[in-house]
């Protein structure tokens, strides 16, 4: 793994905006850390609750099964820290879904940060599932996470579950048979359903924007 590879110099105290990646064992993060490296964004892995507070912002990655990911996150002991923080948090894909109340995937109770649900694409829509590939994202005006991202920019998706559109929390939407939350925000908590680490320059810009929140 590339753990800590970008942090060759200095301690956390000399890099006040250091990003911590919540390392709870849900999927591969090589591509994410590679994208952060390309953007020159310093990061470290957070392996235990004791390490949590020294970071200034957090990414919760995640691929695979939301219920299984929630179980792993609970086992990491970091749930109270995450729920209690007022620093910026970015959930990616399943990491975003964890911020909702509930997922139809495994009928799992999740963090409940935003009072929305994670649903399966209805078979009635006659869509290819997983939703795989590049789809357009339209953000609300003036959201800092989408700074300098044009409306209708394509981002890369691969998922079978989505977060319902919600006028309170949805900060960007995508249409795939149904309009869903491409990104959501509640206070300091942000989530993106697409994969910024695989979405070309636009995705890298999202990571950069988050690192500057």
């Amino acid at each position, binding site marked *: 793994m590339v753990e800590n590879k970008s942090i060759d110099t200095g301690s956390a105290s000399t890099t006040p905006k250091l990003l911590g990646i919540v390392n709870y064992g849900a999927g591969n993060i090589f591509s994410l850390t590679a994208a952060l490296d390309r953007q020159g964004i310093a990061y470290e892995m957070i392996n235990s609750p004791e390490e949590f507070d020294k970071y200034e912002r957090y990414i919760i990655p995640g691929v695979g099964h939301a219920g299984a990911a929630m179980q792993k996150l609970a086992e990491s002991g970091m749930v109270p820290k995450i729920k209690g923080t007022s620093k910026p948090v970015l959930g990616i894909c399943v990491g975003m879904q964890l911020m909702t109340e509930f997922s139809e995937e495994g009928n799992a109770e999740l963090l409940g940060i935003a009072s929305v649900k994670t649903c399966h694409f209805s078979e009635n829509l006659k869509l290819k599932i997983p939703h795989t590939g590049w789809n357009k994202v339209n953000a609300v005006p003036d959201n800092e996470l989408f700074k300098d991202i044009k409306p209708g920019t394509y981002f890369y998706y691969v998922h079978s579950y989505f977060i319902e559109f919600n006028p309170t929390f949805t900060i960007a939407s995508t249409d795939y048979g149904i309009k869903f939350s491409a990104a959501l925000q509640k206070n300091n908590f942000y989530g993106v359903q697409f994969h910024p680490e695989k979405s070309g320059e636009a995705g*890298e810009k999202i990571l950069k924007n988050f690192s500057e929140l």
Partner: protein
Amino acid sequence: MSNSNTYDSKNHQGTGLAKRIIPCLDVKDGRTVKGVNFVDLRDAGDPVELAWQYSQQGADELVFLDITATHERRKTMVELVKAVARNVNIPFTIGGGINEIADADILLNSGADKISINSAAVRNPQLINDLAMAFGKQFVVVAVDTKAVGDKNLVHLNGGRIATEFETESWIKEAEDRGAGEILLTSMDHDGTKGGFDNRLLRKINDQISIPLIASGGAGNVQHFIDVFHQTNVDAALAASVFHYGEILIPALKEDLRTHNIEVRL
């Protein structure tokens, strides 16, 4: 909330999802094979540089097929996968020689977005279930090489040299049921002909499955890409030599596709 949903009315498929254009690179001992005659390439055999070039040109995704036959292959391939993941910001799939969970696991942890299995799945269909269970179905591409034999389409192995008794339609359905997240279908009858994709078969298969389908085999010109998307509604089209030799340039291809009302990422 932005109300700019104007593309809904323009998009005939009604989903907004772009059709993907996928260059395929054959890799042997960590180097691409088949000549590549791009201009401005320092090293035409370096898969990482090629991958980066394709990502800059607007390729939506890449497939690397490892055709190395030696025992050293896995180590070489893992290094390659890491180098691609470090340098390239679009998704990519690795195929070739993946026979068990451990093979897939190390590729996933090196940054591969998907793995593609072909003959290993035919020999051991349970592998599809096991991979989907371990990594999620979005990680599992089942590649199928098909060839017409009499009035049947049969799955073939070893680049079309070995016929199996599996009928292509039912095998693909089985692969979907077992947890494949995507199908990469290569028509051996069309592959290398540059006469166009096997649109009749692709449409038939596409209508039978509810996971994404990648068309492969037969691309010779831009019209072939227009035809496959108009006639079959497949999700992606893959080609190798027409891209490597610069016969089709991806930016121009995508402009043409858009002109023909096919949703693409520009």
